[in-house]
């Protein structure tokens, strides 16, 4: 049960980290003058964040298992 809450918390922090990195990139990156497919931008960006978080959860299960074997 503790592992479940640990991974859930880690996944929430990880999603936040993705959003922070996205905001940081948006701030520092010189804008690309190209507004094609503008309507799809947000949708695909969010789909990627969700997919990456799901992958992170799978990896966390592996990492927690590896960590418990190591200590």
């Amino acid at each position, binding site marked *: 049960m503790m592992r479940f809450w640990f991974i859930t918390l880690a996944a929430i922090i990880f999603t936040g980290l993705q959003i922070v*990195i996205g905001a*940081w990139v948006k701030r520092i*990156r010189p804008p690309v003058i190209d507004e094609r497919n503008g309507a799809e*931008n947000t949708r695909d960006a969010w*789909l990627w964040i969700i997919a990456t978080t799901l992958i992170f959860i799978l990896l966390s299960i592996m990492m927690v298992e590896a960590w418990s074997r190591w200590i």
Partner: protein
Amino acid sequence: MSARTKINAYVELTKPRIALMIVLIAAAGFALGSRDGIDFSRLFHALFGIALLSGGIAALNQYLERERDCFMPRTASRPLPSNRLTPFAASMFGVSLTVSGIIYLAFFVNPLTALLGTATAIGYVLIYTPLKTRTSLSTVIGAFPGAVPPLIGWAAATGRVPLIAWALFAIQFLWQFPHFLAIAWMYKDEYEQAEIRMLPVVERQGVATAQQSIIYALLLIPVSLLPTLLGLTGMIYFYGALALGLFYLWASVRTGFDSSRTQARRLLLASVIYLPLLFALMVFDTTR
């Protein structure tokens, strides 16, 4: 057309450079999985079967993408768009290589390796390739079959896929994101022409592309340390993987600062340096 030209076209259809990289990483997986010394006869059979399978999958991929390949200068000279082979011949060649690779692995290596090979072929040809025109998430789907080489190498050596083999799979899985997103950024206009929905095509500003490159390179650092945590490699690998991971992360972070094609090319170069060095280090510092 001369027989030599035709043979060259068939060889080209198998994407031999990619096949070589797949075979080398599978060999590293085999070596890492071989606890009691390497069985060279089995290694040969495994690599031969994997090479057949890899060539077959590449041929089938090009068969399915033959029309889209015409729209991209990077792919327009491939055997099918340049009319050096007929689609029928290419599809038959691809099916023959794929099926014979799977059967070869089942008979001369073990059923698990053949099963992983089958799943890779289905995942790459029947799921990933058709999704490329439908969603930018096809890159995520394609990363699963793309990460199989070290896993299949380990399975060939041992007939099992323990947690450590999945760790090797995870390393290769994560590595692909900055690598393929860099390629997608470099060729985004060509992909758009061919109606392939890579992330930089649907998100033209490149913010999500840079964001995802950075996050996957960041995630790769702790995952690349797993071989030491799981007792497969020693501390030389641990520090080497850490240094390589930071190098790959830095190359990815720079794509955040700079949206140029040159920067994307640098990230691509960093990715092709990272992976072979990491696996070489793993084989060099194995504790078994």
